[in-house]
């Protein structure tokens, strides 16, 4: 009893602490109940669908099927379009047949109009239609009453739409003349004894929040009235769903029955809380569903505020309960039901049918494109702070890295570098000679990023503002004037990035002659592009602001996507299309992967924030955005030196590796925590640099194929349920498994090594471990548990220098980790590291292959041309046996003996200085 009360007291104290000093002010953000359309839609009960398919209206052409749906309650007709897309994707589009005015359809996110495949009619009767989806005996069954779609493969239902009858489509309507009338009418009709009756006809009635909605002091006038849409999806056999970032949430999504749905609405959330469904800075409306047989995906292409409900018939069942079901032969298949609700627009959903995780990634990439191929240097370490105060400060920090022999590639300038928060300008005192500063950085082969936010100071002496205003490029308020909100510069306008002309003008502002003080080693950071409006509803823009003909409501989640798109285009254009851009964004949408990197926003220097950086980036990777990172050290608050070191160790193995800190925190450059911690951080950063060739290859592959760089284990081990919920470790590509230490005072970590017939090598000790086991690894402060998969070859550059550019011509060391079959393979990709010339086939792409005691390098791109000075300085074969002789055969057929060393205790064979050029054919034979 005593211990119980003690614990309660502790919980209470904890709760008080959490709610006090550092937590989001939840009251600033809407719950579903406070969002009129969400409340309306969520109130609908399943099993009462008023929609019926009018089979007689069906038209089937070579590329699509169209069919009308009717709402039997109000007789409003919808038009269903169904497409079979290339690559095992089915697209379902539902719009009003005759809307009062056009409804918004998201442009620019799809890389092209997706190519279709023919559909064919298999059978038809008065109850429905069966269509063939082409390959693999896939069919779609359209049921008429109520309307429902089932996608089948063989006898299995893969996914059903409107199976719970939650399809809802609020048709556009004229506003009833007076509010009073409708109120009266409503009172008359509401019969508390029979709520079901009233729900049925509610389509035709006005409800609170349909024509106007007030949240806190902000009123959202809704001239178009209600326009929400909703649809449910059933996923039989599925217990694990992932994706729909951005949420500070575990990798595996939770059911939402007992709380709010997951919300997708780009918001600048001050000091966000962990493990909840609140919306954050970005939104990618893509969900993946997985079980050991199949992976599928749902891409809900809608840019309005969206809520996603998840429920499951197995949720809440204990392991014991599940076992009982199994033993008793309880036949209920697990099933997850998902329901999407959006405020406006149309239903346009892409059902990606896998079947493998890789297939789903390719399918999604075929729709929205792949990760942009970043400059090599942007995969290295970034040093940021709000703010480096002046040029002198920049110089000192730069020198500090050299003094402490820690490499870095990018130093960043936050908002204070500008002249009064006027982007594209420099503070005339603190950054009086930016080119001199940039040249100094360039002399060290390093680069800089300066922030350019999309809020523009309203100031008639500011060129950018004047131009945007005179060109009419600002977003307008509902009365037609330029929308103004409060942000860093004070009163600010927001350029309408949804307008293509605006975007091309914006891009032109990055030209060297426009952006004074910029040079080719200056890159860009787009922050606050949700957009953040300090005095707006939920710290963002009023939904009734106007983007041309469309309301902000329709396009909200696209804004950040467009800002980054226009900025990246600007960086490309300024170099005449030669150089790859680097742009970091905070807000994002589906397709944002095409324009650069994202980070997880304003996190905090807390252990839980370090932990959640893993699932947050994994979730983004699953939906195409591979170039993800969290502020190393935590943005708000000040990390202990232990937390800082652990964060560097974790960040060194995440795609975007940048330290950042809030203005009010003490300085935390890596050398400020005593020589021991400096050494630990140096080592973590150096490990990143040695692995840059591998990282670069991963990004090249992500760019080519859409596969995520940082992967959950289940993606590579889809049939091993033990991996399905793991989010404290991850894979980089297929070959490196990382289980960073994210616990304070940790003495050890338990890593799950997947793969029944696999082996894994500790990259530090070369110790071999079997797969399919939980491995306890004792750790010290210097430990970063990382394992290389047996069967892989990873090229590294071990000569870590000041910056990645300094390492360009350095030789490679190949780490060949043999699997139990004594084979291994890997790839090596080399190009100039920064231009688009790889598109002109100027690169080296080789396959490294070890089998039958022969390690060989094979050209994977014979039509590509590039030469490198880099050579192979060392080959380390893990799990090898001692050869008697090692012979190198080069492209010209010459043979030479190689010196080698063999460590029999760890079975490590090191070949000394083979010396062949990394771009050529060669063979090394062990005898």
């Amino acid at each position, binding site marked *: 009893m005593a211990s119980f009360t003690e614990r309660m007291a502790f919980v209470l104290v904890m709760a008080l602490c959490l709610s006090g000093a550092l937590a989001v002010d939840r009251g600033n953000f809407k719950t579903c109940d406070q969002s009129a359309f969400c409340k309306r839609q969520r109130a609908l009960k399943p099993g009462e669908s008023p929609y019926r398919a009018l089979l007689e209206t069906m038209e089937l052409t070579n590329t699509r099927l169209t069919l009308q749906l009717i709402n039997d309650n109000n007789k409003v007709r919808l038009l269903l379009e169904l497409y079979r897309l290339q690559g095992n994707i089915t697209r379902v589009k539902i719009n009003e047949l005759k809307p009062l005015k056009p409804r918004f359809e998201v442009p620019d996110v799809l890389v092209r109009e997706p190519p279709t495949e023919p559909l064919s009619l298999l059978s038809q009767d008065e109850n429905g239609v069966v269509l063939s989806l082409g390959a693999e005996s896939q069919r779609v069954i359209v049921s008429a009453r109520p309307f429902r779609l089932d996608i089948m493969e063989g006898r299995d239902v893969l996914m059903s739409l409107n199976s719970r009858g939650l399809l809802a489509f609020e048709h556009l309507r004229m506003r009833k003349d007076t509010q009073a009338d409708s109120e009266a009418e409503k009172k008359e009709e509401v019969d508390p004894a029979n709520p079901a009756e009233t729900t049925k006809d509610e389509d035709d009635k006005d409800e609170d929040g349909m024509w106007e909605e007030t949240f806190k002091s902000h009123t959202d006038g809704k001239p178009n009235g209600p326009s929400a849409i909703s649809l449910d999806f059933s996923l039989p056999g599925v217990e694990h769903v992932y994706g729909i970032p951005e949420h500070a949430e575990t990798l595996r999504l939770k059911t939402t029955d007992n709380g709010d749905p997951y919300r997708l609405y780009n918001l600048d959330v001050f000091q966000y809380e962990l493990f909840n469904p609140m919306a954050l800075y970005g939104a990618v409306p893509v969900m993946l569903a997985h079980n050991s047989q199949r992976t599928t995906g749902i891409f809900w292409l809608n840019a309005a505020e969206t809520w996603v409900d998840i429920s499951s018939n197995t949720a809440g069942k204990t392991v014991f309960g599940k076992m009982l079901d199994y033993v008793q032969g309880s036949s209920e298949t697990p099933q997850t039901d998902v329901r999407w609700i959006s405020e406006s627009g149309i239903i346009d959903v892409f059902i990606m049918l896998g079947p493998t995780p890789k297939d789903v990634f390719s399918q999604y990439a075929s729709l929205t494109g792949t990760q942009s191929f970043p400059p090599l240097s942007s995969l290295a370490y970034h040093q940021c702070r709000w703010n480096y105060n002046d040029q002198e*400060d920049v110089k000192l920090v730069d020198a500090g890295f050299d003094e402490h*022999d820690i490499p870095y590639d990018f130093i960043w300038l936050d908002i204070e570098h500008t002249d009064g928060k006027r982007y594209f300008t420099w503070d005339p005192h603190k950054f009086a000679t930016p080119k001199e500063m940039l040249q100094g950085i360039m002399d060290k082969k390093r680069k800089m990023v300066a922030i350019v936010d999309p809020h523009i100071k309203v100031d008639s002496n500011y060129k950018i503002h004047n131009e945007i205003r005179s060109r009419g490029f600002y977003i307008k308020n509902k009365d037609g004037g330029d929308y103004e909100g409060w942000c860093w510069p004070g009163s600010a306008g927001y350029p309408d990035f949804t307008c293509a002309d605006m975007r091309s003008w914006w891009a032109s502002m990055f030209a060297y002659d426009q952006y004074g003080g910029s040079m080719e080693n200056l890159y860009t950071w787009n922050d606050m592009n949700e957009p953040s409006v300090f005095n707006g509803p939920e710290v963002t823009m009023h939904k009734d602001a106007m983007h041309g003909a469309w309301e902000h409501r329709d396009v909200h989640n696209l804004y950040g996507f467009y800002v980054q798109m226009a900025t990246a285009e600007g960086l490309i254009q300024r170099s005449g299309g030669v150089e790859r851009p680097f742009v970091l964004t905070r807000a994002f949408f589906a397709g944002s992967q095409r324009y650069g990197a994202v980070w997880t926003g304003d996190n905090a220097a807390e252990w839980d924030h370090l932990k959640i950086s893993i699932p947050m980036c994994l979730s983004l990777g699953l939906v195409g955005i591979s170039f993800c990172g969290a502020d190393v050290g935590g943005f708000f608050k000040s990390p202990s030196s232990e937390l800082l070191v652990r964060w560097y160790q974790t960040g060194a193995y995440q795609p975007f590796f940048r330290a950042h800190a809030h*203005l*009010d*925190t003490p300085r935390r450059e890596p050398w400020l925590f005593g020589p021991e911690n400096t050494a630990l951080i140096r080592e973590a950063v150096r490990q990143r640099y040695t692995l840059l060739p591998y990282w670069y290859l991963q990004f090249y592959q992500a760019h080519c194929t859409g596969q995520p760089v940082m992967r959950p284990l289940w993606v590579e081990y889809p049939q091993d349920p033990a991996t399905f919920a793991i989010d404290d470790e991850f894979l980089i590509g297929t070959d490196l498994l990382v289980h960073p230490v994210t616990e304070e005072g940790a003495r050890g970590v338990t890593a799950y090594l997947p793969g029944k017939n696999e082996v894994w090598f500790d990259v530090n000790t070369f110790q071999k471990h079997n797969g399919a086991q939980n491995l306890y690894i004792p750790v010290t402060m210097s430990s970063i548990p990382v394992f290389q998969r047996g069967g892989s070859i990873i090229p590294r550059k071990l*000569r870590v220098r000041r910056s990645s550019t*300094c390492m360009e011509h350095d030789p490679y060391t190949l780490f060949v980790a043999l699997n139990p079959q004594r084979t291994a393979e890997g790839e090596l990709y080399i190009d100039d590291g920064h231009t688009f010339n790889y598109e002109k086939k100027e690169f080296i792409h080789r396959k490294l292959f070890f089998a039958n005691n022969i390690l060989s390098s094979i050209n994977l791109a014979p039509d590509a041309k590039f030469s490198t000075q880099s050579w192979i*300085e*060392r080959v380390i074969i893990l799990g090898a046996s001692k050869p008697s002789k090692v012979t190198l055969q080069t492209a010209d057929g010459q043979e030479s003996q190689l010196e080698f060393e063999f460590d029999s205790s760890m079975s490590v064979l090191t070949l000394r200085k083979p010396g062949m050029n990394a771009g050529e054919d060669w063979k090394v034979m062990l005898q």
Partner: protein
Amino acid sequence: MRFYVFIASVFCCAFADSRKIRGISSSYKRFYRERKSFLCIDGSKLIPFEQVNDDYCDCEDGSDEPGTSACPRGRFYCTNLGFRPHYIPSSRVNDGICDCCDASDEYNSHIRCQKTCWNLGQRERAYVEGQMRTLDEGLRLKQQLIEEGVLLWREKQAQLRELQQKAEDLHLKVEEHKKRKHQADQHKEQTLKTLQAGGAGSRQHNNTASGLFQFLDNNKDGSITVDEVQARVVTIHDEKRLLSENEAVALLGGGRQMDLTMFRHTLWDTLTKGDNVKIRDTNAALDSPVVEDPLLMAADRAAKWEATNLKKVEEAYETVNMEISDLQQKLAIDYGTDWEFLFLNSQCYKLQVYEYTYTLCPFNQVTQENTAGTQVSLGTWGMWAGEPKNQYSQMVYENGEPCWQGGSRTATVTLTCGTETALRSVKEPSKCQYIMDFQTPVACQPVLKQRGIHSEL
């Protein structure tokens, strides 16, 4: 100095040319004698001598590759003839950035490095000479300031003693005045009591004939008049009633006035007997007449006078004591071994940085003022905070204005050697944490002289 340079160049050239071991200093030559094999300097491994500087790292300690970038822990020796030789990490060899001024680190890269050692050396020498001059001048000034400091210290000590003497004197004075005030107070009290006794029939101060006569003789003209009798004599039966003129004349023996001699023999007896008349009771009716009583008034005046005097002296004493404690507090601060920092106390130094003016008043406070004139405290004197070896190299000012996210502003002042005393730079690397560079001759240290270019060439 030139001599050292010459020697150094002879050594380096001679060895470097004959052995061709790139990247080592002459003192390491002995490890690289050309033999069949090379022993890693840490003794960990024996390798063929051809593998020294062959661009492959064989030794754990990097000693086999002093001239290449092959070893992660290696270092490369820049000879830098004409300038300072120094080591760079091996990773900076052939990285396309010129690190050694003799260009020796970029022997196999795309970049063409200028040989800048002579220029740098010249500049360095000029700089060092400048520094030396500054140091010499600084030390000379410092000596002066030390002397002044000693004088100032003595002066302050003398001042303290003087003040203490003054305090002592004042203390005595205070005691004396306290006594005097006490006496005056007592006298006043007595006068008052007599007066009261007179009124109440007490004879304390009226127990002599002349005393009572004087008491009755209100205007002190040597005779008692009708008025005077009326004023102070009443019948025992009705104290409140004023005597009539006739009654008074009767008491005066039929005349309108009476002198002391006559009083002794007539009215005195009557009053002392007290059968019919008595002196009016002071308690009952003499409120105003007593205040107006000249004796009492005189006594009161005297008491007040003494009180004022005492207060003045006490105030003076307090002031002196405060001065003493101020001075003692000042003198309790550590002004360096020779009181060389003493002169900074009571001085203030200003510097404008961007939109702010910073003021450092050593041993007192640091403030920041913006162009609008708003002043913010960045801290008050805290302590010396230099490293143990030289604790006088840094000052800390603490508990300035509170910061937005908790804590308060602090300023850390680093003292550097210069010929003038001035605030040189102010930075705020983190919010509310100010760093100042304060130059003054007293920060000049003779040890500096041994550093610099001399020993390293």
